[in-house]
């Protein structure tokens, strides 16, 4: 059993209410339309991009190897990275948990007498709840990724790790822009998506120039050069980190890779897995602050390396989860995510990767519903670019939940009964053949059962197919004779 990391988490965990959340999500027509669009778009685009790169599977093997190697020597590569950043004249900070990470950011902001902070997209800062803290301390914080900006003005959290505002529709964005951007003519034409885009461009452009501090995440940290790598389509991360006087990079300790050749392998997988793009529009490798005679760039460059529960996963059965490159392919392809969306999962990370990470970070007592909200179809593991065995890791959480007596009494009793029966093959076989006989009787000629005792919740929405033949063993024996 892994030891529980001693971290607190800012964003309220509502994973306990998964069933209630799921019910609401399934009855939310707008959300369902958005999810259907995602299913059609992201899934097909990825499939096409993969089909066009015969080396894709070999790259997945290589990526897994790179990440496993790095994790096995994580202390070494972190120290190497730190030395290189210091050599480039910049500062590395280490944070054990969310509160330490936020305090470091606050200290830098106060030291710089900052007023405004722009931010590139960063799931880590969502994880630690950075924005609320900065705002409580009187700083203006502006998210610059369009999706994150939309969520910020709506006071919502991301429901997807790559396209965070996937649940919001164009009409809502139009209404929000009219409500918030009161400096413009209320009668302006916002009927086209381009008009919304231009308005956001205009508003955020001002913010980049006003910002004292730009905070970005990192997709990768290069140990050999002390560089941070961000991958974006919008270019917002680049403007954030180039125009503010101080650039703060916040990254989990799991973002380290040894060198650029490793980034080469990983970026060939990242864009294709995330959005079906062969290459994301901007991949930027940043090393330190503005150099002598450079015309632009920040004067100060800080990196905050955040643990927040990650090092505790090393050596545990959940170590493979630290390979994750946050591409979202697992959620895009998950039949459960496709049905209920990201908010249902109740914390920062949704979908299969969230069903592994959330219980690992906040505890199986709070998020035990998530690893159970899986059909174990295995699609997530099949598309994962770093080959994380997601269903297997979810199963460890289920085991843990059972051991801790957290699962419902009825489920525990039924599982125990089944286990007792399964250990007695003759009896099991006998009971199964009775069951099959009864189901056949119930179904009659149609072969389907409209309503089934003990499975009402299931038959409420669909007919139960009756078994066509005997048990497997009966059929097997029959086959042998003939």
């Amino acid at each position, binding site marked *: 059993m892994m030891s529980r990391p001693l971290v607190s988490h800012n964003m309220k965990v509502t994973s306990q209410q998964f069933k209630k959340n799921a019910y609401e999500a399934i009855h939310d027509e707008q959300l369902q339309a958005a999810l259907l669009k995602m299913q059609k778009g992201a899934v097909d685009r990825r499939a096409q991009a993969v089909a066009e790169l015969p080396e894709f599977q070999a790259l997945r093997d290589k990526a897994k190897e790179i990440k496993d190697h790095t994790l096995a020597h994580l*202390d070494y590569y972190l120290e190497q990275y730190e030395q290189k950043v210091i050599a480039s004249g910049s500062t590395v900070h280490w944070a054990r948990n969310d509160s330490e990470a936020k305090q470091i950011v606050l200290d830098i902001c106060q030291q710089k007498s900052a007023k405004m902070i722009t931010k590139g997209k960063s799931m880590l800062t969502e994880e630690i709840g950075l924005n609320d803290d900065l705002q409580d301390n009187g700083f203006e914080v502006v998210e*610059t990724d369009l999706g994150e900006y939309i969520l910020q003005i709506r006071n919502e959290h991301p429901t997807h790790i790559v396209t965070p505002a996937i649940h919001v529709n164009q009409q809502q964005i139009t209404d929000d822009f009219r409500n918030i951007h009161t400096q413009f003519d209320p009668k302006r034409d916002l009927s086209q*998506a381009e008009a919304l885009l231009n308005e956001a461009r205009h508003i955020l452009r001002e913010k980049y120039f006003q910002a004292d501090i730009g905070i970005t995440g990192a997709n990768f940290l290069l140990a050999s050069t002390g560089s941070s790598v961000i991958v974006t389509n*919008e270019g917002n991360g680049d*403007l954030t980190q180039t125009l503010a006087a101080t650039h703060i990079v916040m990254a989990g300790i799991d973002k380290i890779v040894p060198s650029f050749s490793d980034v080469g392998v990983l970026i060939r997988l990242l864009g294709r897995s995330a959005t079906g793009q062969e290459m994301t529009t901007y991949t930027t490798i940043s090393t330190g602050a503005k150099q002598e005679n450079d015309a632009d760039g920040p004067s100060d460059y800080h990196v905050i390396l955040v643990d927040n529960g990650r090092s505790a996963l090393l050596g545990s059965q959940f170590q493979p989860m630290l390979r994750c490159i946050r591409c979202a392919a697992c959620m895009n392809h998950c039949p459960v995510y496709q049905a209920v969306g990201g908010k249902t999962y109740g914390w920062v990370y949704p979908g299969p990767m969230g069903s592994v990470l959330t219980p690992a970070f906040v505890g199986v007592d709070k998020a035990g519903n998530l690893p159970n909200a899986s059909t174990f179809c295995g699609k997530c593991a099949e598309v994962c670019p770093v080959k994380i065995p997601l269903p297997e890791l979810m199963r460890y959480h289920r085991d843990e939940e059972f051991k801790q007596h957290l699962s419902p009494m009825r489920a525990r009793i039924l599982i125990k009964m089944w286990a007792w029966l399964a250990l007695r093959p003759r009896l099991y076989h006998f009971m199964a053949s009775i069951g099959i006989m009864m189901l056949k009787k119930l179904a009659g000629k149609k072969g389907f059962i409209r309503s089934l005792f003990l499975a009402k919740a299931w038959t409420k929405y669909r007919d139960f197919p009756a078994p066509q033949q005997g048990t497997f063993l009966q059929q097997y024996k029959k086959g042998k004779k003939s």
Partner: protein
Amino acid sequence: MSARNEILQSIRKGLKHQTTNAPNENYIDNLAEHIIPARVELSIAKLIELFISKAEDVSATLMRCMNKDLAAAVTLYFENELPDKIKVAPGLSKLNWGDLAVEFGTCVDADKVSITEAIAGVAETGTLMCASSPETPTLLNFLPETSIIIIDKMQIMKTYEQAWQKVSQRSPLPRAINFITGPSRTGDIEQQLLLGIHGPKKLHIIIVERDLHDLKHN
């Protein structure tokens, strides 16, 4: 104990090592063996064609010209609507810009058009690699609505790794190295593909047929 040491100690505890766990050198070398997509195993001429088609796939526009015709190529690109001002990378100040209204330096918000130079092109995905320097400031790549980037034909390579070789030996490394694949885009409004959210709305690539450096030194 400091946060740093406690995190490193926690990592070593998980990895079951007492001290820094340095990797075996051979393993590092082994990792550096790249998987190079077969699609780039082409003649130089075909490689340039691949670069063009891949860049067009991501909504960039392209032109090829001899470098003495650069000003004419830029004029042609704008057809009859020449911009009032074009912000050009200081590193390109020695080129002949003809009658174009060029100004040298990095971009400010008011600049609508920029011209700068890429160090390398990557045929695999139609990607450009630019690096920050006093001659090629970063903001030229991000602030204007129309970004024109010049790439020497001879600098179109197969892969990102080959492009990286062009800068990796510099000490210090350029502050910002930008791999750019098409103009800025977003899918955040109902998953529609929209160009030009923060960076350029248009990316125009001019492949010049002779080594730029020859001309610069003329």
